């Protein structure tokens, strides 16, 4: 009835070419980012494993790995203790850094997706400190019902509870305002700090030392046993993150539009929250509170490869692993005979980045909404 033919579509061919070009550019960038991150990760693993008080050259590291794989190629470490140091000390720590880093990176991307807010992050909203409360609880009261899994499971349950509380209290209409989330973080961190203080007061000297270690975050003294304790939980979390990725894209439209596109929003939210807790809890249980990795990694990657979760989530896993591996390498080699707390490092770099993001968000939203 109403004529629409008068609205010219003369611009469409060139415009669709432009759109195809944009898509092509994003795809190229995505391939470059994944390729670059993988290459950097492999290099960093070899360098990190070889670095320390006992230096092992990269070719000897590769030789040792090949040897363990049953391939007799390359040169074995020349130092008599070289092979043992690599496999008993360095590799567990490197693998833990990769696991914890990818867990934090993915948890950041997931939280930002489910909160609909680019500033959501486990440490900022207090989920990490909540997990630490769970870990401290079992340490102080010497609970060991689940053996080596006790601490990661307790941390998982505590971080799940914290995430649910934060999520339930800070959302309205499917979105979370910047101010709400920052204030929620302050409140949750304050309560967690109070509980941790209480546990410090209750605990004996050994427990106190362990608790102080959490607050700073460190991968010092990680052995294969610890890796084996966190790996299953994190594997479930990482795999689960992949399954919710597409639906998180739809959630960016808002809760109701997502529902009108067939998403069971309640189920999606709960699944995502459980995944976050599965990733953050065990990471905190063994590595302590390491903040800002999820925030910065997911945010930078989103700027480069776009916000689509099916690519953002795996990229955040790679990016988080790389950042944490490098941070840990720096932490243990920057000062001779000292292991700097890694949480302190990430906070020193991540804090200012968070500040910068806050400023950017503020100018974008036209003030604090």
């Amino acid at each position, binding site marked *: 009835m109403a*004529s629409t033919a008068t609205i010219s*579509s003369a611009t469409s061919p060139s415009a*669709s070419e432009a759109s195809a070009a944009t*898509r092509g550019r994003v795809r190229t960038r995505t391939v470059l980012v994944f390729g670059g991150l993988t290459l950097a990760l492999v290099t960093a693993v070899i360098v990190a494993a070889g670095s320390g008080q006992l230096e092992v050259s990269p070719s000897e590291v590769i030789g040792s790995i090949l040897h363990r794989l049953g391939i007799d190629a390359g040169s074995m470490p020349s130092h008599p203790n070289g092979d043992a140091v690599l496999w008993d000390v360095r590799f567990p720590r490197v693998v833990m850094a990769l696991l914890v880093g990818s867990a934090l990176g993915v948890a950041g991307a997931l939280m930002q997706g489910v909160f609909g807010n680019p500033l959501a992050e486990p440490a900022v909203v207090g989920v990490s400190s909540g997990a630490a409360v769970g870990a401290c609880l079992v340490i102080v009261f010497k609970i060991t019902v689940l053996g080596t899994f006790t601490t990661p499971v307790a941390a998982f349950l505590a971080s799940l509870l914290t995430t649910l509380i934060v999520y339930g209290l800070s959302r309205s209409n499917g*979105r979370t305002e910047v101010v709400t989330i920052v204030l929620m973080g302050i409140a949750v961190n304050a309560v967690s700090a109070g509980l941790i203080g209480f546990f410090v007061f209750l605990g004996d000297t050994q427990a106190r030392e362990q608790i102080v270690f959490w607050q700073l975050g460190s991968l010092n003294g990680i052995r294969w046993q610890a890796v084996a304790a966190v790996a299953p939980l994190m594997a479930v979390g990482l795999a689960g993150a992949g399954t919710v990725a597409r639906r998180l*894209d739809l959630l*960016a439209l808002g809760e109701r539009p997502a529902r*009108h*596109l067939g998403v069971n929003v309640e189920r999606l939210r709960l699944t995502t929250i459980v995944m976050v807790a599965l990733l953050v809890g065990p990471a905190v249980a063994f590595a302590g509170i390491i903040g800002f990795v999820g925030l910065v990694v997911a945010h930078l990657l989103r700027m480069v490869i776009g916000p689509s979760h099916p690519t953002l989530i795996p990229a955040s896993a790679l990016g988080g692993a790389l950042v944490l591996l490098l941070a840990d390498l720096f932490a243990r080699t920057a000062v001779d005979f000292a292991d700097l707390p890694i949480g302190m490092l990430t906070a020193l770099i991540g804090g200012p980045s968070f500040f910068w993001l806050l400023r950017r968000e503020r100018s974008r939203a036209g003030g604090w909404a």
Partner: protein
Amino acid sequence: MSWRRVTRLPDASAPGDVVLSARGVHVRFGQVEVLAGIDLDVRAGEVVALVGPNGAGKSTLLGALSGDIDALPGTVTVNGTSVADWTSLELALRRGVLPQRSDVSFPFTVEQVVRMGREPWRNTEAEDADDVIVAWATESTDVVALMGREFPSLSGGEQARAALARVLAQQPGLLLLDEPTASLDIAHQEQVLGIARTRAEAGDAVVVVLHDLGLAAAHADRVVVVSGGVVVADGPPADVMTDALLSAVYGCAIEVLRHPRTGALMVLPRRDIVDLAESLEQRPLTTKGAP
């Protein structure tokens, strides 16, 4: 989503089939009864315009029809089945909803946003036609030139059209549009309602909330006037849109004229008369046609 049972794909409706049916819809916000028992049927092949003054309950009614607002104790059925008996995916294959405002949390491109409309059809045969349908949806809403732009960076009118393209890409048999013309210029208003007409002629059922009575008169098959939480009139534009009814509903002197050349209905406020009671005395209520 619904791995427990096989998703029921929609069958095509014949023109005149009741696609959406609401019975006894009540909505209460706190003490205020916003909708006080609304019955409404929408058939395949028709455009139904919901009009009424601010606060009459038009958007609330659309919210109840779309499931965003609880309609209890009333019932809403889509394609003859109560909404409670469809899964959210099955409803998404049948019912598309365009909200008044569309916000996107992250800088997704327009193309990504429009493609999200195809998501319910994943793993069905219709998935193969995704590219063709997305191209059609973006061309008919005039957003092709915006495809590579980030959705949050668009103007309000551009966002409204891109959001409509997403809903069209979903290809539902029932379209619920909440003020789709609110932030559009006159050309795009015509275009958007032209799309609604085209969809209805293709056999879809379209419900659209409108403020502009002239647009409603020109493009709708049926006009439903909502006032005070009830339906006060429901019928073809020429029957429903009378001086008396509109003046009473809007509390303002309104006259309905025929365009001298085309005969189309024109709805205008009587700016020469300040007092409503006086105007009703001066002009016979049923008068229609050019002065």
